[in-house]
């Protein structure tokens, strides 16, 4: 069914999403079976209006693939994703007007300035030049990026400064659903705090719904209303931080354990450990 108006009560609904990649190209003369890597396996969850939903997992757990599926950049093999009721695959154009994304790797035209980059990305989201420039400066100021750095070529900026521009790019279009893929990874403590405060502010003041992936438990604890753990491409637990901690506290009270303990207990590994690829036969 094609939806004409957004369903404001359901910002994000993910049902049974699976994705397996087959790297390389098929060579007709090769008899060796092709390597198949399972990235996401039967993932289902929903995000409520105005909440920050955290997806916690180690490197290689499938977080970024899942974010790409939710962003329409990877098509799922199975399952459906609805953004405010719009199917991300069949009504991609509508859904893409409502979302934006920050990736762990801030990518820009490195020879262009921050403002020139943002001007382009504002324009492709339908903003006019003057409005884009005004908003870009507002957001970059708010994130603490100095005016001289706003006009410098991106390649001359530090990673932390580039990540702030990436955050500004994503919020420039006033998305009602924001997908943040490890937005603070590799940032210095000050930049990390600036970004976290901005995310909290956007959620509080504008009611934006946010999906945040991270392997920083403190960040998840500080920002997220609800949390899901993802391991080997599958979600193994979901709930508020309190519920998750209570689930392993054995009557000692939720404060007796932290999220890292919960992750270790439920998955048998640390969130800092990189995951091995999950191979699939056939």
């Amino acid at each position, binding site marked *: 069914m094609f939806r*004409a*108006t*957004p369903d*404001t009560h359901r910002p994000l609904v993910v049902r049974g999403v699976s*994705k397996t*990649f*087959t790297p390389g190209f098929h060579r007709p003369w090769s008899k060796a079976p092709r390597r198949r890597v399972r*990235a996401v396996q039967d993932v289902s969850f929903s995000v409520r*209006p*105005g909440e920050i939903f955290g997806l916690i997992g180690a490197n290689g757990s499938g977080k970024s*693939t899942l974010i*790409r599926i939710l*962003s*329409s*950049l*990877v*098509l799922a093999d199975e399952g459906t994703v609805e953004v405010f009721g*719009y199917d991300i695959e069949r*009504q991609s*154009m*509508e*859904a*893409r*007007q*409502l979302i*934006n*994304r920050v*990736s762990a*790797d801030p*990518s*820009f*035209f*490195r*020879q*262009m300035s921050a403002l*020139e980059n943002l*001007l*382009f*990305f504002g*324009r*492709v*989201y*339908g*903003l006019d030049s003057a409005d884009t420039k005004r908003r870009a400066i507002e957001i970059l100021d708010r994130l603490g990026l100095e005016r001289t750095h706003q006009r410098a*070529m991106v390649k001359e900026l530090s990673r932390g400064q580039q990540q702030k521009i990436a955050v500004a*790019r994503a919020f420039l*279009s*006033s*998305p*009602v659903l924001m997908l943040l893929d490890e937005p603070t990874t590799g940032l210095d403590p000050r930049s990390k705090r600036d970004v976290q405060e901005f995310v909290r502010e956007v959620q*509080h*003041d*504008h*009611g*934006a719904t946010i999906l945040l992936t991270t392997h920083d438990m403190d960040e998840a604890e500080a920002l997220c209303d609800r949390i899901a753990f993802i391991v080997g491409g599958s979600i193994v637990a979901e709930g508020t931080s309190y519920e998750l901690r209570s689930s392993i506290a054995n009557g000692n009270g939720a404060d007796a354990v932290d999220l890292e303990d919960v992750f270790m207990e439920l998955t048998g590994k640390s969130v800092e450990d990189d995951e091995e690829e999950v191979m699939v036969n056939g």
Partner: protein
Amino acid sequence: MAELNFGGAEQRYFPAPSRRFGARQQASLGWAFVERQTNLWKRHWAWEIVWLVYGVVNTLAITFIAKQLAAEGVVSGRRANDLIVFLLIGTLVWAYLSAVLDDISLVVTWERWEGTIEHTLMAPVPRVAHLIGTAVFGVLHAIVRTSLIMAIALPFFSVSLGHANWGTAAIVLGVGSLSLVGLGILAGVLPLLYPERGEQMSFMVQSVVLLVSGVYYSINTLPTWLQGVSHLSPATYLLRGVRNAVISGASPSAEGRDIVILAVFAVVMIPMSIAVFSAAERWAKRTGRLKRQG
């Protein structure tokens, strides 16, 4: 696209997003790509000088062959003049063609290299606006670069252009540019399909166009089977039309057949290439090939 109104945490209301975009919106979205490419062009001015010098040297080096043939008496009089103009047009049109094809086909490679391709393809921009905007920049850029090459190279040769019908040449070049847009978009599909080798593959397309289109020689020189292939290249008709206009002063009606063929190429190839690009984009999303490379 209407600006979203969050309406605060309590009232999460926002207007329905657009399913289709009007011509004006599409033009505005497409123009964003022209602005972006212009900014990149300004920042990469050193590369522009490199390509300009290469274009001038290439034009001179090839056209001097005709001058030597005239000096040795192999050709003389009007034929010598026509041969110089023939090669001059070949090199200039090739500089124009390759600039258009490069700008359109390299856009995916460039974005993949910078890592911005996911952000660009995720933006709610119809692919038509994206690709046509990129093509418009390519054509404008090629006009500027080729005009500069021509302005620098022309004084080296005392050729007579008194017969030229510049109006016909402009019409052929205009319609021919449209036909090249489709070819450029098709070449741009290759880097989308083959992240590591796609760029080289798009150069291969250009080199085939160079071989079969009669850039430096008449297509009659080619083996019969290659002459058949040359009819599939819009550059063949573009070069023939411009040469007839400049060397023989052909009128638009005299060149009508080539102009119509170029128009047919444009009408068929632009929608087809956009459809192929969209299908390739879908395949790249299905197989996870949009991720950053390089």
